[in-house]
């Protein structure tokens, strides 16, 4: 994906603000991957995520007047997308599993070897073709969906989309301290979830990843 030079982006934003759809569509081309990816990871349903992504871009174009330059445009867009995703989630009223509610966010003793086995499988190599099996991806996705919404947004933006703390603060309209705390609590919860659900994981991941899955 070709990165837009910052000047170009500002020009495109200015043109969009004067009603130029073509200019805005160039911005969409730039950001639709991250928007869709964020929404999808937050709610876990492909079709709904696509609809919400489309809605988010429409909403963004409608309210582009309210974007003030200087801050990250990406964060501004993702704020709209993540807000819509949160709204949808609340509407659907899916509640976190009770098993997770019972978990404390702080540490218990768990099996460190298990997680290291998981982590080493996917980190190297092409991120487009993850080495994580579908099953493991599903487990992680499930874990993300178990997080409270504020932590979920922070985790998805930080650990999946790679936004900076500053951008996440802008996207969630919160302070850096809040962002830090949400990310930390989200990670701790997720770690506990993954250790709890290790029986769901394919056997070759609990051992080492030497025998391939194909």
């Amino acid at each position, binding site marked *: 994906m070709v990165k837009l030079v910052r000047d170009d982006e500002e020009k495109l934003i200015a043109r969009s603000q004067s009603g130029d*759809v073509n200019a805005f569509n160039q911005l969409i081309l730039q950001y639709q991957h991250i928007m*869709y990816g964020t929404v*999808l990871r937050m709610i876990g349903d492909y079709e709904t995520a696509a*609809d919400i992504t489309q809605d988010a871009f429409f909403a963004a*174009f*409608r309210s582009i007047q309210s974007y003030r330059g200087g801050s990250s445009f990406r964060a501004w867009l993702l704020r709209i997308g993540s807000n819509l995703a949160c709204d949808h989630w609340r509407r659907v009223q899916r509640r976190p599993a009770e098993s997770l509610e019972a978990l404390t966010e702080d540490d218990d003793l768990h099996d460190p070897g298990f997680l290291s086995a*998981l*982590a080493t499988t*996917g980190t190297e190599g092409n991120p487009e073709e993850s080495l994580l099996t579908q099953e493991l991806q599903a487990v992680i996705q499930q874990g993300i969906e178990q997080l409270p919404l504020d932590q979920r947004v922070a985790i998805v933006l930080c650990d999946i989309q790679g936004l900076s703390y500053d951008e996440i603060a802008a996207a969630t309209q919160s302070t850096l301290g809040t962002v830090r705390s949400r990310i930390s609590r989200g*990670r701790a919860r997720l770690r506990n979830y993954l250790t709890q659900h290790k029986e769901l994981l394919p056997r070759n991941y609990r051992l080492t990843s030497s025998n391939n899955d194909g």
Partner: protein
Amino acid sequence: MSQPDQHLTTEQLSASLDQQLAPQEQDQLDAHLKTCEECQVKLAELRQTVALLHALPQPKLPRSFALPVETVAVPVVTPRERATEAVAVVTPGEQKRRSETPRSSRPDRPRLTYIRTTIRVMSTLAAMVGVIFLLSGLLGGLHTGGGATTSASAGIAPSTAQNASKPEATPAANVPKPTRTVASAVGELSPIASTSAAVATPEPSPTTFAANNNGGGTSTQSQRLSEPPPAPPLIDLSTAGGRALLGIILLVLSLCGLIFLRMRPQRTEVK
């Protein structure tokens, strides 16, 4: 912050993964980690969790999310046909309006509601007028249907008017009396009839008394009333039949409008 002998918090460890600690804080953390295996394990687990999240593949885009430009470049219609269709239906006008008035922040929704409200107002107005016409048509039908009785009492009015004001009423007495009943319903009068009506109406209550008193008078009046039939084509058209028809047409129009309103929301509210 943390003393070398105190365990590190999850938040500190988490923040250190993202280089979010101040240099001094990071140094303390490193110092503690060297000696504390428990915190090392915690940090490793957090790092692995992050690595797992990071290893999740970027999903493939199901379609392009570019917005349709006017009528050109409508996005590729994929699985969610209904949604994109609705979007495509809404947007061309939306875009046009935007290019005209770029300053308005939310042009599409208000525009849709304008159209809807105007349609709603128009159809309700049409319905109201239609009902009025229909009712007046029916009433007109009653008037002509019960013409014998009503005109009998009404026909006397001129005769009492004759008593009250002889000069005007007497010369025109024969012509206006029958037409007056129709005149009250239609409002279309020959000049003579209107004068007689103007004479007659000021005293409506005396007419009923007169009807009771002048029994013999009524029969002669009703005889005169049998004269109107010569004029029916004009009268019939503007009374019962015509107005009822007009009323029905208007009602049908308003019904069409309401049905149209019912159809629109279904299409646009698809999420």
